[in-house]
């Protein structure tokens, strides 16, 4: 990133090749919506600079669990989160930690592309501006360009940065949202079914993008498509009825699942 965050602290293990350190760690996470429990004691370690996919049938709690990592569940009325989640060893529920800072470190891309009804430029520049990451026009211009470059959108929109972001096609909008998330220099990017509203071609473009982004970011993606999980992720977690059934290397999950339920799901017998 052109504007490094002070909160980035590469650990020793982060630097040594394949053995990726765990960036996110969840311990006995539970989520309740009012009286209804949505997540039951989920624990997992998510490695850095890789793609981790959450799969499972509708309503299994994978999106709910994803939203725990940037505390987006806080914005839902009556939602309570229990257990511990740490990112780089820091408890994200620590009262001393400002949720705004957390969300600057943990970016999110939503199911439906949701660009602001502003210009493409302002969509990207908004995050860095509110976090005080850029000073002056030149710096902002450079950051907008680099974020759009990384999201593979620069060539398509370079000549119309003042056009409204909502005027782009669905796939372009989603890449704009990814660029917007990248622009604040996050360490983790959460993607909640980012391709579910896109056609196959736009999906392929976004998947290629995810592939490139994992060199730099820790990506957690929720997906309905098992093919997508198999294509983009290194690790896969299978959820069912709010419980984490199985979590492992993607290849192992799809080729040689240990749990019966996982096997049933990936072979299309439940879900």
């Amino acid at each position, binding site marked *: 990133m052109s504007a490094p965050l002070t909160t980035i602290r590469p650990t020793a293990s982060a630097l040594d090749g394949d053995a990726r350190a765990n960036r996110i760690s969840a311990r006995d996470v539970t989520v309740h919506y009012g009286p209804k429990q949505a997540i039951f004691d989920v624990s997992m370690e998510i490695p850095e600079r890789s793609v981790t996919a959450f799969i499972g049938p509708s309503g299994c709690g994978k999106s709910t669990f994803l939203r725990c990592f940037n505390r987006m569940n806080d914005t839902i009325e009556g939602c309570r989160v229990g257990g511990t989640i740490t990112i780089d060893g820091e408890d994200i529920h620590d009262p001393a930690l400002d949720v705004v800072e957390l969300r600057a470190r943990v970016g*999110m891309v939503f199911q439906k592309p*949701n660009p*602001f009804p502003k210009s493409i430029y302002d969509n990207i520049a*908004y995050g860095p501006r*509110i976090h005080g990451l850029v000073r002056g026009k030149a710096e902002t211009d450079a950051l907008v360009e680099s974020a759009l470059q990384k999201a593979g959108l620069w060539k398509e929109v370079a000549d119309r940065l003042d056009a409204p972001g909502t005027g782009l096609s669905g796939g372009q909008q989603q890449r704009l949202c990814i660029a*917007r*998330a990248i622009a604040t220099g996050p360490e983790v990017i959460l993607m909640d079914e980012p391709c579910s509203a896109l056609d196959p071609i736009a999906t392929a473009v976004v998947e290629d993008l995810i592939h490139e982004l994992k060199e730099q970011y820790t990506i957690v993606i929720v997906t309905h498509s098992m093919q997508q999980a198999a294509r983009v992720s290194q690790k896969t977690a299978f959820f069912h009825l709010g419980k984490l059934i199985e979590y492992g290397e993607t290849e192992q999950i799809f080729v040689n699942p240990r749990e019966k339920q996982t096997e049933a799901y990936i072979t299309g017998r439940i879900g």
Partner: protein
Amino acid sequence: MTAIDTAPAGSAADENARRRAQIRRSLTRRNRAETRFRLLGLGSALAAMAFVAVLFGNILSHGLPAFWQYTLDAEVTFDAAVIRVPERPVQGADQSDAEFRAAMLSWQRRLAMVNWNRLIVASVQAAAPGQQIDDRAAVSVIDSGVRFVLRDMVADNPALIGQTVPVRMLLSADGDNWAKGRISRDLPDARQQLSRPARDWIDSLMAQGTVHRAFAWHIFTNVDSRTSPASAGLAGAFVGSLYMMIVVILLAVPIGVASAIYLEEFAPRNRATDLIEVNINNLAAVPSIVFGLLGAAVFINIFHLPFSAPLVGGLVLTLMTLPTIIIATRSSLRAVPPSLRQAALGLGASRTQMVFHHVLPVTFPGILTASILGVAQALGETAPLLLIGMNAFVANIPATPMEQSAALPVQIYLWQGNENRNFFEPRTFAAIIVLLGLMILLNALAIWLRGRLERKA
């Protein structure tokens, strides 16, 4: 489908034909219902439009003639024998300001004592040399406010004394009624407001064209008057209403919008906020006269604010408008898609930043429309104003919102109750036209701004 797929081909064809016939039968029924409903809707819309057309037609046909009043173009001789006043004082070098003011005041008092009616009588009689019109009749055909017009002319320009100049004089209310044919010519003398010479004078001068209709600008520039109804105007009421609107805009709009934002975006959902919500909804349904009672009890009895003041009126109307603005603003905030809020929060915007950078800009047109409509509603409200004394007869333009004042809707109420119904009925409709014109202007502004802002967004 599966049942048909597995059935033999012949019976499947029969089954399809039977189903199509069934659908066709139900289709006729549905089409009939649709036509019926469409006609009903069209009928309702036409009926509503007819009502509005009748209402507006009625108001315009009654009110528009009041904007043109009969006037007399006559020569007025400012007879020095009648206007016996000394020279207008000029401030001498040795004179202090206070002394000069005292001298000026005494001169003006002398001027006020002049019998201006004698000038009017003379010019009325001179206007129709052939007509025998006695002094009383001559005074009765001209609006009693004209004598003040003549006085002010001399006060402004004492050089007029001794000169003869053309002056346009307003006919009295009775004269105007007679000229407009609003009094039956068949009534016996005893039941006529004007004596026979006065009536004949008007008829002959109308035939000459010396008495003719002119646009009644004074409706907009004069204040209400009891003694000279023909020159009564709406200026005082207009300014009073303007002050109240300013108070409402300054208080109800920011308070209403701010509380709506707080309740919708920041307040925790609990018993207390539920209670507030229920109360706001109930307040919107409280009859406006109750707000007037509240205003009288609180603003006048407790805070000792003056009676009949636009400030108090504005405060009462603010209370009345608040629920409207809060409810409308909240519903436009609620209409913002959650995805926009999530996008902002997901980027690490604080709640306040989310609201002010993203939610408010898209809801701005809605909030603006709600505010303008709320203010327009307040502008037309009468009942609460009656209870804080704004139905008093006030014949001046208030200089500050603390001064006593009339208000447009209350002026309508007062005029429609005036005992000179024959003259004040059209006058009332004229005032209604002015008020409706203002309302339509405000609503048009709301629509125009909304369209403009939404196009931009």
